[in-house]
C-alpha cells in the first residue's frame, strides 16, 4: 500500500481558514491529506501543539495565518513569527526535520495559494516518508477517546 501522508494544518480563522473556504467555493481540487484545526489567530498557536500533532501521528504540518501587517488582531502573526523563528532553531533538538513543517501566509483572497501550500506540503512529505520517531515512543493512539496526554503539552 502506498504511503499517504497525514498533514495537520494549524490556521487562523480570519485569513487562512477563510482562504481555504475560498478554495472550496472556487472548487479548487487539492490533495485530501490535510486536516485543519481552526484557531482565532496564529498568535494562539503554542509550539507544543505542533509537537503534539507529530506525537499523535502527523507526518507533516502546516502553520498558516495572515500576511504581515494584515493580522485581524494587529500583531498576533508577528508574535507567531517570532515564536516559530525560535522554534525552528529547536527542531533539531526534538528530532524533527524542518522540511516537515510548512510555515506560510495565506490571506482570505488566496484560495489558489492555499491549494499550492497543501499540494506542495503533501508532495514534500510524501518524499520524506512517514514520521515514526514519536509514534514509536508512545502507546498506540486511540481515536479521540482520551484527553491530552501528559507527555507533551498537557495542560497542568
Amino acid at each position, binding site marked *: 500500500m502506498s504511503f*499517504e501522508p*497525514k498533514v*495537520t494544518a494549524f490556521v487562523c480563522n480570519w485569513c487562512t*481558514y*477563510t482562504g*481555504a*473556504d475560498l*478554495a*472550496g*467555493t472556487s*472548487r*479548487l*481540487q*487539492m490533495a*485530501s*491529506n490535510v*486536516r*485543519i*484545526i*481552526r*484557531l*482565532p*489567530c496564529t*498568535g*494562539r*498557536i*503554542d509550539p507544543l*501543539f505542533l509537537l*503534539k*500533532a507529530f506525537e*499523535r*501521528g*502527523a507526518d507533516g504540518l502546516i502553520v498558516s495565518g495572515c500576511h504581515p501587517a494584515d493580522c*485581524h*488582531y*494587529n*500583531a*498576533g502573526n508577528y*508574535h*507567531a513569527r517570532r*515564536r516559530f523563528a525560535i522554534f525552528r532553531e529547536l527542531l533539531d533538538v526534538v528530532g524533527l526535520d524542518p522540511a516537515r513543517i510548512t510555515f506560510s501566509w495565506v490571506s482570505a483572497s488566496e484560495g489558489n495559494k492555499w*491549494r499550492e501550500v497543501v499540494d506542495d506540503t503533501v508532495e514534500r512529505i510524501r518524499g520524506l516518508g512517514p514520521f515514526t520517531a514519536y509514534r514509536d515512543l508512545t502507546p498506540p*493512539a*486511540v*481515536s*479521540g*477517546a*482520551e*484527553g*491530552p*496526554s501528559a507527555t507533551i*503539552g*498537557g*495542560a*497542568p
Partner: protein
Amino acid sequence: MARIGVFVCHCGENIGRTVDCARVAEALMDHPGVVTSVDYKYMCSDPGQSLIKKAIEEHQLTGVVVAACSPHMHEKTFRRAATAAGLNPFLSEMANVREHCSWIHEDRDAATAKAIDIGRTIIEKVKLNTPLETIRIPVTRRALVIGGGIAGIQAALDIADGGREVVLVEKEPSIGGHMSQLSETFPTLDCSQCILTPRMVEVYQHPRIKLYSYSEVEAVEGYIGNFTVTVRKKARSVDEDKCNGCGACTQACPNRKIPSGFDAGLGKRPAIYVPFPQAVPNLPVIDRDRCTLFIARSKGRKDACMKCAQACPKGGVDFDQQDRLVTEQVGAIVVATGYQLYSIGREQPPGLSGYGEYDYGDVPDVIDGLQFERLASASGPTGGKIQRPSDGKEPQRIVFLQCIGSRDPAKGMHYCSKICCMYVAKHTMLYKHKVHSGQATVFYMDLRANGKGYDEFTRRAIEEEGAQYVRGRVSRLYRDGEVIKVRGFDTLAGEPVEIDADMVVLATAMRPQPGIETLAQKLSVSYDGHGFINEAHPKLRPVETNTAGVYVAGACQAPRDIPDSVAMASAAASKVLGLFANEQLEREPTVARVDEGSCTGCFHCERVCAYNAVERKELRDRKGNLVKVVAYVNPGVCQGCGTCQATCPSKSIELQGFTDPQIYAEINALGGWAS
C-alpha cells in the same frame, strides 16, 4: 458525561456528491459520547433546524456538531437553533465538510474518510466546550472629541444633534482650526469663514456640547463605554466668568508687535489677545512668554505694566490663574487633531530634513500656502490685498511650487499631501482675481485633481485664468536684487527654465500635529511612521482605530481636504451614536480569562496584548495584606486572539472557546486518522 448530537448535511448535492453522508453519520454514531447521528438533505432549512432542536430536547444533548458548510456561513444559524432548544449557543459547533472537503476533492472514499476525521475533531472539541454568556458592558453615553477644527466641530455637532452629550477639547484659545485661516475654499471659491463661523457659534451655543478651549487631554483611562479623561485647562489669565469679550484689555496692551499665529506670522498681535475677531469663545488669553508682567515675574522682578488689568471694566484679568485639571466620564472618543504644515526652514524636527536651497525663512518673499491664504483673506494682515511681505509691493509674478516635502523620501515623507494641487490652483485664481496683470506660474510633478468638480477647477485655472503650469522641479531659489530667481527644469519641454519672481509660494506637505504620538499613546491607538493615526481597516473600518471606542476623523489620519474631513467626522459620529444606541454593549464571550491561583504575575501576557486588555489585579487576604499581583483580562477590551495564552509560561490564561484542552482534544482526535 457528554451527550453529543451529530447532524450531517448533504447541502443538496454539494456535500452528498463526493461525501457519503450516510456513512459519515453512521461512523460518527460509533464515536464515544455521540448519542445521535443523522444525515439530512438541507440542515439549514426549517425542517433541518427543527430536527436539531427536537434532537436536543429528546436526547438531552450537551453538545451539537453540524457537519456542513463553513462556520463563517452558518455557525450563527445553528447556534440560534441551539438557543431556541434551550442549549447554550456556544455548545454548538460546525464541522466544515463542504468548503474544506466535498468541494475540493473528487475521490468519494477519500472525501468521506476526511469528513469523518473532521467530524471527530469537532466532536472532541465540543465535548470540552463550556456554556458561555454574552458579555454585557455598561456604556457611558457621552463622547469626547479631541480637536476643534472642522472635523471635530462636525463630529461634535452630529453627536450632539443625535441627542448625546459631547465634551470638545481644543488646545488653541479658539475653535475653528486651520479652516478658519483659509480665504476661500476649492472648488467653489466660497468664503471659508462664512461657512465655518456659524458652525463654531452653533458648537458654543449647543446645550449638549461642553467646550474646553485652550485645554489639552492630560490622561485617558478605561475602555470602550467607560473612559475617564483628565483635561488640562491651561491658564488663560482671564476669568471666563467675568470676561464679556469687550476687548478693552487687548486695546490697552502696549506690547503689540508679536507675530500672530493666526496670520501665520504675517500679522501682529498684542500679548493679551483674541486670536481672530470671530473666535469662539470670544475670550482673550495672555501669552505668558511675551507679556511684560510674566517676563518680569520670571526674572524675579515685581509685577510691571498691568495695563490690561487696569483697562478691564469687570476685573477679569487674573495674573495668578493656574492650570486646572478636570475629569470627564465618556464612552467614546473621536480623535480629530488635524495637521500642521511641514516647515521648509533650516530647523527641522529629528528625522526630517529641510529645504535650505529654497531659502525659506531667509527671503521674506518665499512663503508657504497658509501664509498666502492669510494674504488673500479679507480678514488677513493686508485686508485681502496681495502684497509681498518684504516691501508691501504688489507682486506681478508669483511662482508656486508643489510637492514641497510631499512625495519626497529624501525629506522623510513618501506620501502625497492630497490638497496641494487643488489649493495651488485656487491660489492662482485668487491671485488673478486680485491682481489682473499678474502672472502665476506653477511647478508641479503630477496634477492630482480627483474629486467632484476638482479636475474642472484645475482646468479652469489653466485655461480660463491663465495660470502657467510647468511640469518639473525647482532646484534652487535665490534673491537677486528685487526679484527671486527660480531655477528649475521643464521635463515636458526637456529644458532648464529660469523665472524672475516677485514672490514664491511653497505648497508644503501636511503632517500630523506635533505631540500626536504622545496623545496616541495615551489613547493606545497605533500610528504610522509619520505620526498619522492608523485606522482599524483601510477599507471597511476607516474611522475606527485598533482601540475599541476610539474613532478618528480628519487630517490626523492622513492628508485630507475639507469635504473628506467632514465626511469622515460624520462617519465617526454615526459610529459613536451607534455605540450609544444601547445602554449596554454586547460582546462575544470568546475572551481570555486568568486562573488567579496559578498566575505568577510575570505579565508576559500584558506585553503581547495588542489591545491593552490585560490589567494588574491585587489579591489580598482578609486582613488586607497583599498576597500577590495577578493578571486580569478586561472582557470589554479583549478581542479574543489568544496570543496571551500561547505566551503564558504557567498556562494560567485561557481563551474561552479555544482552550488548550479543546485544541489538544482536536489534535488527539486526529491520532487515528480514518484515511
